[in-house]
């Protein structure tokens, strides 16, 4: 069973636990930053001036370490990456924000974390930097109305590097590790040292390469492997049929323009061509990847309804998509046969069987609707810290 990340929401006092965890993590973060000398702005400036790359080495090593631990943990089935929160990718606000922070770093030698560390060791430049950042933040908040469209726009089509480049996760990790090590060698050379003569560097470098190769060779869990981990929690939804909806539920949600509904038809192409529900898409090779990307980048959650005459096939695809963290996932009970049976009694002018109207739905008693189709926010999208999105 996948153990990590922990679900603090399942504990008795989640907010208190989160405060204590945050305090502990902050203590460690501040301690390491100060111990590494990152609270000294002169070291940041020396890095930018290409004289002393210590601060960059710390940052890059940290990113590599987290990357390798996370993806190795995922490969071994210990960590469910899809439940980790990562800030959404808005391209141009990210570029502009990065440029402004780069300018700020060049002038002051600080970023927010190092300034807090500096303030902790009673360095007034760190404290004044933080006061300046409060003003900058305030100005942003007051002026956001004038560029809100820009700030909320340019959502990246791909949220991760591997999907953007079309690489596997493992290959990306190996490439990143090797690029990082090459950068370290360059930095050491610039500083006039011989990194390959350093035992520490050799040790850490070798372990990094070994870990990245393991991530590549082992690969990330397949949907089938992931299903084994999540089966205990999700199989009951199939067994008690709470994810099976009837035709009326679908028709009601389809009429509501405020609700997102994606209908996936698993039947053979000729059957789909002969008749399919309003807005349904045929399940063809490549459709799964496209669907997952669409759901990942969607601003609001949607319900996904699987339509099939073969229930065993529908269940199989449901399990596969559920293992890939598709939420609000349902199966149309009885497939097309049940659909046609449901509306066989309707005798209205201009009745569209693929898209029953509100008038048609009104002919059914309220108890005929199971009300099972609900659209809820994704469990993974619960940011704890960076909440301004």
């Amino acid at each position, binding site marked *: 069973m996948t153990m990590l990340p922990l679900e603090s929401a399942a504990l008795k006092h989640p907010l208190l636990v989160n405060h204590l965890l945050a305090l502990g993590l902050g*203590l460690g973060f501040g301690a390491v930053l100060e111990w590494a000398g990152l609270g000294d702005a*002169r070291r940041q400036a020396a890095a930018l001036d290409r004289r002393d790359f210590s601060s960059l080495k710390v940052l890059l090593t*940290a990113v590599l370490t987290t990357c390798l631990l996370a993806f190795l943990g995922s490969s071994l089935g210990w960590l469910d990456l899809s439940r980790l929160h990562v800030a959404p990718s808005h391209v141009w606000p990210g570029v502009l924000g990065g440029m402004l922070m780069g300018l700020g*770093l060049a002038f002051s030698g600080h970023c*927010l974390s190092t300034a807090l560390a500096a303030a902790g060791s009673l360095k007034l430049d760190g404290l004044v930097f933080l006061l300046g950042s409060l003003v900058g933040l305030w100005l*942003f908040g007051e002026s956001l109305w004038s560029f809100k469209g820009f700030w909320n726009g340019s959502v990246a089509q791909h949220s991760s590097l591997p999907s953007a480049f079309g690489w596997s996760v493992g290959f990306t990790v190996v490439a990143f590790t090797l690029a990082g090590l090459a950068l370290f060698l360059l930095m050491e050379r610039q500083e006039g040292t011989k990194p390959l003569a350093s035992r520490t560097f050799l040790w850490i470098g070798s372990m990094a390469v070994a870990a990245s190769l393991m991530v590549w060779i082992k690969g990330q869990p397949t949907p089938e492997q992931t299903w084994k981990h999540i089966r205990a929690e999700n199989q009951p939804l199939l067994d008690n049929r709470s994810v099976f909806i009837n035709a009326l539920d679908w028709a009601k949600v389809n009429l509501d323009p405020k609700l997102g509904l994606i209908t996936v038809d698993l039947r053979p192409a000729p059957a789909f061509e002969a008749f399919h529900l309003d807005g349904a898409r045929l399940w063809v090779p490549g459709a799964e990847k496209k669907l997952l990307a669409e759901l990942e980048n969607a601003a609001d959650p949607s319900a996904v309804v699987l339509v099939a005459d073969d229930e065993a096939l529908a269940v199989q695809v449901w399990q596969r998509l559920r293992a890939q963290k598709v939420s609000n996932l349902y199966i149309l009970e009885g497939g097309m046969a049940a659909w046609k049976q449901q509306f066989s009694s309707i005798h209205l002018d201009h009745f569209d069987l693929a898209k029953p109207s509100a008038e048609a739905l009104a002919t059914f008693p309220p108890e005929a609707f199971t009300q099972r189709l609900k659209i809820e926010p994704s469990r993974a999208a619960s940011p704890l810290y960076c909440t301004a999105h």
Partner: protein
Amino acid sequence: MTARPHLNPYVAGVLLGGLVFLAFALTQNGICTFSSVRHFDVALLQALGGRHPNHVGYFAMTGTSVLSALNHPAISMGLGLLGGAMLVAWRHRRLKLEVLRPDAMTVRTRLLLAALGGALVGFGAAMARGCLAGQFLSGASLLSLGGWIVALSLMGTAFLMARVVRRIWN
């Protein structure tokens, strides 16, 4: 008494990376200092700004009162960061009220640059939806495209400013 030497950067990086991983494993979130600063900022605005902050969407969504802005784990993380740095600085004989600056730079100039840099970073971090810790340490380590965009933009700009940096700091 002389200060103790700094930690080997690679060892420090491994410790930091382990900490960020721990943050993900225990809280589902990485580490983000920007959020600490934002919550404190909004708490300050709530204390000083009367009803105005609640009419500004960006502030209101962070907290609609001093207490609600402060009662967030991000504040605890910020306090922990301050405390951890203070503890280690004391232990390593670096806890001293001073302004760290190049010899040729006056204290006034240094503090002005710090304030200017802080304002730019505060605005930029809000624009980018996270600081170096949030977007690079946390986001980029999970291969987030957004994290890498912010990090490369930040580093690229900072390095392009090398000449200016040299003039300021040397």
